[in-house]
């Protein structure tokens, strides 16, 4: 097995009596292409929020590269290399595509607190941002306001902002959600071109996305890990088929 990048130990989060995430032991290897699937309400998004520090766990630990980060705030975890995208776009809609990425890059390189130097003089920030857009084939749209882009391209901007953080762990929450089928290949291609060393965790319902991309799959049901294995094993697992894959059209 390859070395572990991100790990959870008995991670639990309760909302009152409801255990949204229940004693989850999970490992994400360096350079992983891992998918997290499960029916609605399985606790996938809560799990992501625990990994990124949006929520604090009721019990259990989160480790990054062997280091305990359970008590670190969201911003600190970002600095340590955990970036994410959102299921529903969270973009700077009134700004240009390039500026969206610049804001992210400026935070990462520590340019953002500076008050008396024009942002336009930080050529390094602008260049790096353009570079990211080029690798995502978004450079032609760099000057458009995000709100003017078709939804599929907006999803790419979502990804570009996360890449601007130069993450070691990238959490993608339904990256192709809401994108028409004709456009979804743009996103999937972009995800496939991500640098190998980044550990990627995709949360998705779309089995085509999962099986095209993932080398490993974890199935969550009712807040707990139900099964884990290669896509082939998961597909063949009769219990998984019963609770999940069989439920056709589950949102």
């Amino acid at each position, binding site marked *: 097995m390859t070395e572990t990048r991100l790990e959870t130990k008995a991670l639990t989060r309760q909302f009152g009596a409801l255990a949204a995430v229940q004693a989850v032991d999970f490992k994400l290897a360096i350079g992983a292409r891992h998918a997290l699937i499960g029916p609605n309400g399985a606790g996938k998004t809560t799990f992501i929020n625990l990994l990124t520090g949006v929520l604090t766990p009721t019990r259990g630990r989160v480790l990054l590269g062997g280091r305990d980060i359970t008590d670190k705030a*969201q*911003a600190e975890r970002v600095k340590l290399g955990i*970036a994410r995208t959102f299921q529903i776009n*969270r973009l700077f809609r*009134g700004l240009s*595509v390039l500026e969206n990425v610049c804001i992210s890059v400026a935070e990462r390189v520590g340019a*953002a607190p500076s008050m008396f130097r024009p942002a*336009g003089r930080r050529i390094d920030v602008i260049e790096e941002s*353009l*570079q990211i857009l080029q690798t995502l084939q978004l450079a032609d749209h760099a000057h458009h306001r995000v709100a003017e882009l078709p939804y599929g391209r907006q999803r790419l901007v979502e990804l570009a902002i996360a890449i601007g953080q130069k993450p070691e762990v990238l959490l993608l929450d339904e990256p192709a959600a809401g994108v028409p089928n004709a456009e979804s290949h743009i996103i999937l291609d972009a995800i496939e071109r991500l640098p190998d060393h980044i550990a990627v965790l995709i949360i998705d319902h779309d089995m085509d996305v999962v099986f095209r991309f993932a080398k490993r799959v974890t199935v969550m049901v009712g807040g707990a890990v139900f099964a884990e294995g290669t896509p082939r094993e998961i597909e063949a697992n009769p219990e998984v088929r019963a609770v999940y894959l069989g439920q056709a059209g589950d949102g």
Partner: protein
Amino acid sequence: MSVAAASATAAAAVSTDHPAARVLIRRHRLRLWEALPWIAAIAFYFAFPDYLGFGAELLIAILFALSLDLALGYAGIITLGHAAFFGAGAYTVGLLASYGIWTEPITSLLLAALMAAVIGFASGLVLLRTRGLTLLMLTICTMALLGEAANMAHDYTGGFDGLPSLPIAPVFGVFEFNPLYANTQYLYALAVLFLCFVFVRTLVHSPFGQSLTGIRENLLRMHAVGSPVRRRLVICYTISAALAGIAGGLWAQANAYVNLSALDLDRAATVLIVLILGGYGRLYGAFVGAVAYMVLAHFLAEVYPTAWQLGLGVLLVLIALFARNGILGLGETLWRRLAARRAAS
């Protein structure tokens, strides 16, 4: 990302030529038209020597609106209590002068800024944990508390009557404030406005300003890219408060009095109207809005002395319905359409 780094150096020459990059690289540069407001202000001085009192009032209104623009227009901090800081500045100058403690105008302004900044920082630490309507109500509360404190301390502040006939020392020990001929007041206010404007302009074009825009556009995403959002907002609010305090201090010096109207809801609402009228988040919205408001109020008051605010209300409704980005926003839209039509033909 060593591969990306290597290709970045290779593509470096190409990329800054990209139109989107050029927009960002050039955004902070001075345009020729930016000299216009200052030329107009100097022309006003020579053209209307009898109206310099009114002119000084206008310049102070611009500065106050500019301070609000930084918080509301750029960082998206919804506030209806900005007069708290205007009042804090005005009373700082007023109390110091009235009791003969300190009358030198420039240092008084700095003290006014400091006092307003301290109140802005302290209240911001608490207030800026909230958003939207809650924040709006809390800003009004803060202002009301300060107003009531000033009212209750009438032994010192003069309460409702305020502090009249403040002795203000001459600027640089030479230029006296004359209540009848407001030459000094006008030029002094213009100089202060100019310095504050240069400061705000620098700030909004900096990476810090860019991050404020990011917070306005999507707060949650800013958290997700590792931005210390609360700290940025508190810093911005504190700076904005300091600028409002300078405006208040100027107002006290120019009029040689302070009263409770410096920190009441009426003043807070007026500055908001000024900014919305001109267009927020645009730097020059404060200028356009203040001029439009003052001229309009003057004109309407002449035509309908009893009900002039009605006309203002109707105008605000129209702005809210058809020109959300104020007069400047309307101009930008028209300009863009014109450019598009020209490009098409």
